[in-house]
């Protein structure tokens, strides 16, 4: 290491030290300020345009004030449902495999590739899903949107599941095997069951992460001003609706966008909060 005491007076060194510590405090303040600004404004603008109709009514055409995002909320829930139905089994299964074949070359390659997949820009996943799922059938669909989100979910769930299963003591697994349990039953009923609260948390964190995604949905779910619950039709989603309202020139729609953003953020925070409690009940306070 560098010489800790260059030829400077102790007082000067202490002053430098204090000043630098002060700067880290300033950095901490500056890093948290934008969050407080954004949350504050969101509450202020979102709450003024939020009412019961926002949850129950359909979007109104330009010029008519009021209306809501009922279809977008249902759309978001449907897309999250499709994504979870595909992404969770694949992610958990892959996580199980990785945890049970720790030393294998295949496991470390897949671990690396799932980090690579996790780091891909969401817009690239969007155009991939368009090319693969939308272009051949020539129309946008809720299913394509859900699958695009599932692709984003898989690496998150895989890595988190693996981490959780690693916390299960080997003794538990060995005890079950010694009792004559086949490996598959040991894995599914003992190991997975023990790690379940952690995996539930991981799943919820992944859902919270993708709930606000817009880019993968632009060319897959596409958005829809009308009511739709069909997998084969374009479907609306909160982030899509917020985007199209935000870039529109109408004040009514801007107000709706703020309300939508507040609802979306509330949804994301709610899921994250449930995720925290799911772990806490078993492990007594999570560490993230």
């Amino acid at each position, binding site marked *: *290491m*560098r*010489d*800790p*005491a260059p030829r400077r007076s102790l007082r000067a060194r*202490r002053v430098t*030290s204090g000043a*630098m510590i002060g700067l*880290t405090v300033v*950095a*901490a303040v*500056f*890093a*948290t300020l934008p*969050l407080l*600004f*954004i949350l504050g*404004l*969101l509450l202020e603008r979102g709450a003024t345009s939020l009412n019961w109709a926002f949850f129950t009514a359909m979007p109104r055409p330009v010029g008519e004030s009021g209306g809501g995002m009922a279809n977008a909320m249902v759309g978001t829930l449907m897309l999250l449902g499709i994504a979870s139905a595909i992404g969770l*089994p*694949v992610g958990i299964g*892959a996580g199980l*495999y990785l945890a049970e074949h720790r030393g294998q070359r295949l496991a470390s390659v*897949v671990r690396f*590739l799932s*980090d*690579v997949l996790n*780091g891909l*820009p*969401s*817009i*690239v996943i969007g*155009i*991939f899903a*368009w*090319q*693969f799922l939308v272009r051949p059938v020539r129309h946008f669909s809720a299913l394509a949107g859900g699958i695009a989100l599932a692709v984003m979910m*898989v*690496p998150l769930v895989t890595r988190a599941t693996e981490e959780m299963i690693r916390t299960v003591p080997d003794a538990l697994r060995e005890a079950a095997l010694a009792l004559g349990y*086949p*490996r*598959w*039953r040991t*894995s599914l009923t003992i190991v997975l069951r023990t790690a379940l609260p952690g995996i539930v948390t991981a799943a919820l964190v992944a859902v*919270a*992460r993708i709930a*606000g995604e*817009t*880019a993968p949905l*632009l*060319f897959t779910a596409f958005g829809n001003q009308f009511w739709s619950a069909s997998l084969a039709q374009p479907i609306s989603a909160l*982030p899509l609706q*917020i*985007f199209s309202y*935000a*870039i529109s020139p109408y004040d009514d729609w801007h107000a709706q*966008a*703020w309300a939508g*953003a507040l609802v979306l953020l509330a949804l*994301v925070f709610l899921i994250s909060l449930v995720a925290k409690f799911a772990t806490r009940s078993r492990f007594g306070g999570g560490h993230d």
Partner: protein
Amino acid sequence: MSTTPLHGASFGDRVYRGTTAAFVLSIPALLVLLGIEVAVAAWPALSAFGFGFLTSSEWNAVDGRFGAAPAIYGTVVSSLLALVIATPLALGVAIFLSEFAPRWLRQPVAFLVDLLAAIPSVVYGLWGIFVLVPLLRERVMPFLADRLRLGGTPFFSGPAYGPSMLAAGLILAIMVLPYISSVTREVLLAVPRSQREAALALGATRWEMIRGAVLPYARSGIMGGIILGLGRALGETMAVTMVIGNRHDISASLFAPGYTMASLIANEFSEATNDLHLSALMAVGAVLLALTLVVNMLARWLVWRVERRGRS
């Protein structure tokens, strides 16, 4: 390992093994499929324009001539700008949280910074359109150009529209800050206590301990965190699309509107006029894919190196 106490068990084991193996193989399969699909879709444009696609700044859907240089330039500049702003702040927060903060303050502040990562991109964009961009146009840009007399320099010249490279860089800075700070915090916590105690025992002040004993030890991990943040910034789409102004132009001025690869795709894809236009956008996606792959691999490798050293 295949001890099979019961006759039926071995069948169950094979099904279980086969299923989980199929799920695990779906990850590489997905990546290969993604690479092939994007490459195939990008091929017509890439073969029509060749290397010129990366260097030409002409983007004309009517004449069918496409060059991605402005979008590549905008992606790189906005991301680097974000890193220049976010890195000192993120390092400051991480050092504060791991070394100086009183215990009761650590969890809440770390939680708040992590929350920044939970806010959806489109919400940042909304805030950007209605708060950040007007603020830049009416206060910050006039202040920089006239008060500080930077208007004469090429970087702060031109009219203050609001939507600009500067707006994109600022919003990206807020968005990547939590990624850099959380990796840095983890890396700092992995620095052994003995390293700190040795420095203090030699008479170092607390800052000298950080600078001389902690930061050098954690350096490559911190680099990994910064590059991970870079990877996020390069691919960030919605917030940037909403504030960068979307114009095919290379300008040295941070006040000028620009384009990034991601925002170009988001903006023009659903309005693509013909097959070549669509393929050009796919080619932009392929360039973005290649760039983020390289950046992310570099970041993982750096973080992995520190973690391995920390373990042994």
